[in-house]
């Protein structure tokens, strides 16, 4: 048996032994973190967390939660979802609060919005994700963190359309891949910033993977995160890698408001810890 540690395939590219140095050239070589987000706090950028809700009054969020909605599964409605406003969002598990806390720790002045898509009715999950995405796009959200995914192929086209809509509306969608290598939507589309976990701890250290679909690796192992009832916990999963990138994207958007999702991806590529100016 091999003595090499086993890692989920998506995270494999970011292990120390697999990590490649990628050369940058031309004007991209001049882009660095200082230019990209130096001095930025994320002020004015609207970030949505599509998840289990967000505990609005959690101290780790510094009072930056500006509102939210609950997306309920309802077969009677046109898109099979019913949207319910939630002025003071709550979290039913803690997972959304964890993601929001990571984003806030990186972009302390970004405005946070909770889009709760988890309900007791399990069969509506993918439809609720889609409904949450649609709400975000209709409400001028600029950065969308989606640490959940579906592997139901029948939603391939629906999510494809929504991610294209996001691109055309200049909203950057950051998505965690599932923790085991199955197709996970919407994390596998080209306009989405798809993230897996690496073993590092520094929140600003992220890696670029030249072999898509998973293009970025960020911290996601034993991360101390905020949880419900104003608590904290230590948790592991690709879910916690995505919000690190969402936070950095919020910083970039605040400093460079006109950048499009693909331009932001290029900036991230240039600022990744494994890229070198050639």
């Amino acid at each position: 048996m091999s003595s090499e540690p086993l890692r989920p395939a998506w995270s494999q590219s970011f292990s120390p032994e697999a990590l490649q140095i990628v050369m940058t050239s031309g004007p991209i070589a001049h882009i660095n973190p200082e230019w990209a987000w130096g001095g930025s706090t994320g002020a004015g950028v609207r970030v949505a967390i599509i998840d289990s809700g967000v505990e609005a009054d959690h101290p780790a969020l510094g009072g930056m939660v500006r509102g939210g909605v609950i997306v309920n599964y309802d077969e009677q409605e046109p898109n099979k979802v019913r949207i319910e406003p939630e002025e003071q969002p709550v979290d039913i598990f803690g997972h959304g609060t964890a993601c929001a806390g990571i984003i806030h720790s990186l972009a302390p002045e970004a405005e946070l919005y909770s889009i709760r898509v988890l309900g007791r009715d399990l069969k509506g999950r993918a439809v609720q994700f889609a409904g949450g995405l649609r709400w975000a796009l209709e409400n001028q959200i600029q950065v969308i963190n989606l640490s959940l995914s579906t592997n139901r192929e029948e939603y391939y086209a629906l999510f494809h359309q929504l991610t294209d809509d996001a691109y055309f509306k200049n909203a950057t969608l950051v998505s965690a891949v599932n923790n085991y290598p199955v197709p996970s939507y919407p994390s596998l589309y080209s306009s989405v910033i798809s993230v897996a976990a690496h073993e590092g701890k520094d929140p600003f250290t992220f890696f670029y993977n030249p072999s898509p679909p998973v293009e970025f690796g960020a911290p996601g192992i034993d991360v101390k995160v905020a949880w419900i009832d104003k608590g904290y916990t230590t948790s592991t999963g690709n879910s916690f890698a995505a919000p690190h990138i969402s936070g950095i994207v919020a910083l970039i958007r605040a400093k460079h408001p006109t950048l499009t999702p693909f331009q932001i991806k290029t900036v991230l590529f240039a600022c990744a810890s494994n890229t070198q100016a050639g």
Partner: protein
Amino acid sequence: MNQEGVESESAIVNQLKRLLLAIEVSGRAILPGTNDQLLQSIVDAAARIFGATAASLALVEKDGQNLVFRVATTVPGVESVVGMRVPIDRGIVGYVAMTGQPIAISNVREDARFNQDFARSTGYMPQSILAMPLISNDRVIGVMEVLDKINAPTFGLMDMELLAIFAQQAAIAIDQSQHFDQLGRAVLLGLQTLASQEPGQYGHLLGALQDSQGYSEQDQEILELADLFYDIRMLGEAERRMLLQVTSAFRDYCRSRPGQFGFGRI
């Protein structure tokens, strides 16, 4: 069709109905047991391979509102979680069932989301936990957990990948047991498909078989009895023997006193 033909066809239909019921009953009474043993062995193997103190497997109930623990490793001095029911919107197992995402937590005791009352009622409070969804046909059908990795403070990403393989095996086993559970209905469906290919020849049969969908009150009772026998059988060898003795004694008693419960009345 002449009268004789109709009669012989209805006899065939009746025989088929009896056969379908027999298949369904044996499916319920015997086959799921094999799969529980398989699930138990998957959970036991997972605990050993992960070097975990305990492991368990819970299934989402039909109405989707609760999870029920189906199998678990035995922890000395701790009450078994098997049979316990938790609401789907609570606790780590609930989170994993609702999101379909695995999660590893390394300080469960400090985690508010962990169902403290539940842990206390079983007398076992884990420190670290790794929970993985069981997915069948893109649907979460249950959750498998391993608790407290020995000689390590936490479960990592590689543990997640490994547990995903176990979870896949368990999901296949459960999937199969659910097919067995509805073996009679599956065979009926097969017969209907066959008959529909020759509607001219088997048209009557097809109609009669369609009528036989759903069970009569009497058939339902027999199926309930099969479920009961299965439940008792799973309690243990002593219970199994007792069931056999009590049931045969009851049959002999009824035979010896025709008319007391309706037996032998014309």
